């Protein structure tokens, strides 16, 4: 026990002596959270749209004014002809063309319904889908308006409209969705990379040779490498949450105790994986490349950008051994939904199992003799 304390004390001495590293640990999360959270947003504004108004009636004018008033759309041009619009669609960066066909108003009055056509640029499929949804919403809204106007004249029955509400993130604030995920990545990179590089550095410098010939036990050595970076990871998480609260007013619906408890287990798992990599390679270059390889897979599959439920079965199965998946899910659930300890218990068990496998493996794969 005393030996372990001395080893940890040595690690902290070295970390605090590395002024560049210290500054990075403070500045990096702030910058990343400011830049990434604002940049990685799916909120859409100013979708460029051209409206082809072949109808030219008061009804089409009314629909056009809806688009003009919407912050999501920027109406670039209104033209009666389809051809020039299509030409611009092919050549310029235009998100959509709305075609209001000839006789729209007439059809509506005659049969009670009519349609418009939407052509969207689907190079970015997410953007195309959102453009479609926004258009749908606008047209529905307009439908309601003229419906009411009609019913007051003719006395026909009022139509039933479905309305909806988004729970847990009522304004569909994309930052609330992204910030917990980015924070997870931040905590992971700082913890895992620093611990892994630190151990391999001892190999490269030759200091490990000197340690290996001392009575220091393998478990003590690995634990001493894990503890300081575990503490730094927890500190980074706290720092990130404070920034999230101050800058983005992210809600803390659930208990922070539960969140930090989970983070504690998560960091053990992730640091153990990092140390496992570093015990099995020889140079800092190798450890960087290996960690980067695994981290990239973990991040892309974690559900940070795309919902895990949409992934193929093997992808969802893979996420059972993806610590990032568990942590991002927990962060979102606890922060936004207010999930308690009982709710995240299955997730905690998953990440706990990874920790229980990875840590002994890291200790075992560190060999004092060769």
């Amino acid at each position, binding site marked *: 026990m*005393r030996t372990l304390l001395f080893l940890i004390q*040595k690690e902290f001495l070295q970390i605090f002596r590395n002024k560049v590293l210290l500054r990075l640990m403070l500045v990096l999360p702030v910058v990343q959270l400011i830049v990434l959270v604002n940049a990685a947003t799916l909120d859409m504004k100013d979708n460029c749209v051209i409206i082809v108004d072949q109808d030219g009636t008061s009804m089409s004018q009314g629909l056009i004014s809806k688009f003009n008033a919407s912050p999501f759309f920027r109406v670039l041009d209104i033209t009666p002809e389809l051809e020039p619009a299509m030409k611009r669609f092919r050549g310029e960066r235009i998100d959509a063309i709305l075609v209001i066909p000839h006789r729209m108003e007439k059809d509506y009055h005659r049969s009670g319904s009519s349609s418009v056509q939407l052509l969207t640029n689907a190079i970015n499929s997410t953007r195309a889908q959102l453009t479609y949804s926004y258009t749908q919403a606008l047209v529905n809204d307009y439908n309601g308006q003229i419906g009411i106007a009609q019913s007051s004249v003719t006395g026909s029955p009022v139509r039933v409209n479905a309305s909806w509400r988004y729970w847990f993130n009522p304004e569909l604030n994309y930052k609330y969705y992204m910030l917990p995920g980015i924070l997870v990545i931040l905590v992971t990179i700082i913890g895992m990379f620093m611990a892994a590089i630190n151990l391999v550095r001892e190999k490269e*410098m030759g200091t490990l040779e000197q340690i290996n010939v001392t*009575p220091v036990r393998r478990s003590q050595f690995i634990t001493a490498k894990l503890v300081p970076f575990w503490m730094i990871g927890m500190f980074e998480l706290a720092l990130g949450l404070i920034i999230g609260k101050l800058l983005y007013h992210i809600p803390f619906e659930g208990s922070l105790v539960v969140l930090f408890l989970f983070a504690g287990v998560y960091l053990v798992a992730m640091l153990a994986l990092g140390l496992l990599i570093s015990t099995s390679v020889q140079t800092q270059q190798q450890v960087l490349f290996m960690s980067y390889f695994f981290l990239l897979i973990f991040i892309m599959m974690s559900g940070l950008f795309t919902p895990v439920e949409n992934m193929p079965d093997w992808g969802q199965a893979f996420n059972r051994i993806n610590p990032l998946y568990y942590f991002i899910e927990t962060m979102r659930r606890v922060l936004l939904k207010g999930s308690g300890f009982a709710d995240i218990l299955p997730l905690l068990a998953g990440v706990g199992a990874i920790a229980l496998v990875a840590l002994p493996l890291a200790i075992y794969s560190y060999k004092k003799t060769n």
Partner: protein
Amino acid sequence: MITIHQLTKQFGPVTAVDRVSLTVNGGELFGFIGPDGAGKTTLLRMVNSLMLPTSGEVSLWGLNPVTDYKQVRTMIGYMPGKFSLYLDLTVEENLQFFASVFGTTVAENYHLIADIYSHIELFKHRKAGQLSGGMKQKLALSCALIHKPRLLILDEPTTGVDAVSRGEFWEMLRKLKHSGITILVSTPYMDEAALCDRVALMQNGNVLQVDTPIGITQGFTRPLFAIRTQHRHEALQSLRGWEYVHKVYPYGETLHYIDHRQGVTVDDIEAYLSVCGIAHQGVQRVAPGIEDRFMELMDG
């Protein structure tokens, strides 16, 4: 007492240490002398428990480094060939750290290192990375000694260290020997062999001979001459062509010449050199050094 029996280490097809057997007495200053690649480091790493032998075994006062590594690691001090203390920790922090991982304190064993550490104590708040080569070496020795080891293993401690520091270092080793510590030291420098109690001459993983430095030079019986000349290359060529030559090779600033004949004199050699038309600044009969013996043993 240390016994090494038929110790062998193979790396794939390469045999780094080949069936080495020898005995080192307790309290001895024992040297492993040989060129780079002779297998010195591998041998020492098998003794200090860092490397598992392919076959054969080592006994350190009855303890086997393979099975009793836990006890072995508490009783040896090891100084690897490459400086391997923490460069970003200060002199004092390094010393304290190594004392603490061995479960002791600097104060407890200060008397052991006082002589050595006093040279660098002035710089105890300086980072190890900022020390000069000689000071680094003194710090490394202090750290290897701080837990009062029974056996001190030094792998090429003087490689890359200036001549004055080398002298000081060997002086320290002699003093340490008096406090009863057994010392194994490897070096590629033949002149350092004379400072050991006994030495093992090593080449290509084999031990050629184990003896005291005097015993080793006594094994050299042929007459040996040192020739001082500015035309070393021509002299070497001519002497190699002489019918009586046993061996001739550059040695420092001179050439060492060994003759077949027992009764040969300085005059005989001077006469031959003048026949060949080679000017020289003197031919002297000299006592053989360890290197001369080594050169002879190397050729089998």
